[in-house]
C-alpha cells in the first residue's frame, strides 16, 4: 500500500462565521484518482483552495508529503515554489488561468518558471500541444478561443509541468459532448502510479470512468461517505 502524500486532519474552514468545511479528515495516496462530489456550496472549491495553499484552514492540519502546510510555511519563497512545483491546479474557469499573449507562450510559461533548459521546454511544449490536439492554435491569443479550447490549453499548461499531484476543479464544466469525451479520455490516459489526481465534479460518468475512490461531501460540509 502506498504512503499518503496528502493528509487532512480535522480540517474546518469558516468564512464570516459561516461554516464552509467541517471536520474533514482524509488521506490521499499516490497512484490513485479521487473524485470529490457534493452539492453546490458544500465546500469543494474551498477544499481545493486549501489543497493548493491558496487558503488555510481555520482549524485542523494539512500535511503535504509529511510537512505541515501553513501560511507561514508558504511565505518562504523557496518552500512555496517547491510546494507549487509538485501540485498542479486546473481552475474551473480556464479564462482566469490563461493570461499570456499566445497559446504556445501559455504552455511554456510554467516551464520557464521551473528553470528548464530550452530544448526540454520545446520538447514538452510540442508534446502537450500535440497530445491535446491544439498545435494549430499555437499562435492564437488564449482569450480568443472557445471554452473547450481554453480548457485544453489550461490542461496542457498544467500537465506540461509534470506535477506529482493534479487537482482539477470541474474539468468538464461548460464543455460540449465532444469536449467532455476528449477530456475524459485524456484524464484516463494520465492516470499513473507516480501521480495523484483529485477531481471535483458533478459528472457521474467521469467518476465511474476515472476514480478509484469517491468522496462525497454533504450539505452539512462534512464527508458523508
Amino acid at each position, binding site marked *: 500500500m502506498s504512503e499518503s502524500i496528502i493528509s487532512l486532519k480535522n480540517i474546518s474552514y469558516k468564512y464570516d462565521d459561516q461554516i464552509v468545511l467541517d471536520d474533514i479528515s482524509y488521506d490521499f495516496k499516490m497512484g490513485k484518482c479521487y473524485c470529490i462530489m457534493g452539492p453546490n456550496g458544500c465546500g469543494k472549491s474551498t477544499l481545493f483552495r486549501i489543497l493548493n495553499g491558496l487558503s488555510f484552514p481555520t482549524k485542523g492540519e494539512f500535511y503535504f508529503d509529511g510537512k505541515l502546510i501553513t501560511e507561514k510555511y508558504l511565505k518562504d519563497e523557496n518552500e512555496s515554489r517547491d510546494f507549487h512545483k509538485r501540485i498542479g491546479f486546473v481552475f474551473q474557469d480556464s479564462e482566469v*488561468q490563461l493570461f499570456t499573449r*499566445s497559446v504556445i507562450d501559455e504552455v511554456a510559461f510554467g516551464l520557464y518558471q521551473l528553470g528548464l533548459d530550452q530544448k526540454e521546454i520545446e520538447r514538452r511544449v510540442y508534446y502537450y500541444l500535440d497530445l491535446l490536439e491544439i498545435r494549430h492554435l499555437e499562435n492564437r491569443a488564449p482569450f480568443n478561443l472557445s471554452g473547450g479550447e481554453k480548457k485544453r490549453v489550461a490542461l496542457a499548461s498544467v500537465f506540461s509541468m509534470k506535477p506529482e499531484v493534479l487537482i482539477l476543479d470541474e474539468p468538464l464544466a461548460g464543455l460540449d459532448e465532444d469536449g467532455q469525451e476528449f477530456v475524459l479520455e485524456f484524464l484516463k490516459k494520465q492516470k499513473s502510479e507516480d501521480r495523484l489526481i483529485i477531481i471535483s465534479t458533478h459528472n457521474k460518468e467521469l467518476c465511474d470512468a476515472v476514480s478509484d475512490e469517491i468522496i462525497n461531501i454533504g450539505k452539512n460540509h462534512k464527508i458523508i461517505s
Partner: protein
Amino acid sequence: MKLNLTILKIISQLLDYDGLDKSLSRVPLQKVVPALRLFGVCFIILLCALSRNAYFTFIIIAIGLLHLSFLPVKDMFSVIRMVFTADLFSGLILLPSVFLGNPGTLFTVLMKVTESVMLLSTINCELEWKEITAAFRAFKVPSIFVLTLDMTVHFLVILGRFSDRLLEAVSLRLVGKKDWKSQSAGDILGTTFLKSTRIATKTSEAMVCRCFSGEYRSFKKHRFNIWDFLYVLFLILVFVLFLITRR
C-alpha cells in the same frame, strides 16, 4: 451604448487577424523582426527631429508613402486618416505663427508630424499587439512590465465582453424605458469592477500555482534573416542621407 460600441471596436481591433499566419502574405518589410522595426521607426523619427533640412524629411515621407502603397486599402485609409487628423490639430495650434511672421515653422512642424504619425501608424497597422509587446523585451524592458501589458489586453477583452453582455441584459429587461442609461450605467460599471477584482485575484492565484518567479519570455525566437539584414542596411543609408543633407 456609445461607450460599449467604443469598447467593442477596440476589442475587434485587438482580435483582428489573431492567429492567422501573416508571414506568407507579408510584404518584405513586414518580415523584419518587430523589435528591429520598432527601433528603426524610433531611429528615423529621431533623425527627422534632429534634421534641419526639409529634403531629408521629404525623402522619408516619400519612402513612407511608397511603403504605404503596398498595404491593403483598409490600412492605407487608416494611416491617412491618422495623419490628416494629427496635421489638422497641429496646423490649428500653429496657425498664429503664420500671422506673426513665421510661416516656415508651420510648414516644418507639419512635415515632421506627417512623417512621425505616418511611420507609427504604419507599424501599428502591420504588427499585431502581441508582436509589439514581445518586441519590448528586446529593448530590455522588464518582463514584469511586458506581462502587465499583455494581461491588460487580456482583461480589456474579457471585461469588454462582460460589460457588453451586461448591457444587453439590462436593455432586454428595460423594454421601452428611455431613461435607463442614468439608472443602470453605475450598476454596470460597479458589477464590471467587482468582476475585474475577482478575475485579478484568480489570475494572481493561477500564477502562484504555476510557480511564477518574475520570468516571462516569448517561446518563439526570431532568427535573423535576409530581410533583417536589408533593413539594417536601409537604416544605415538613412543615416548617411541624414549626414549628407545636414551639411
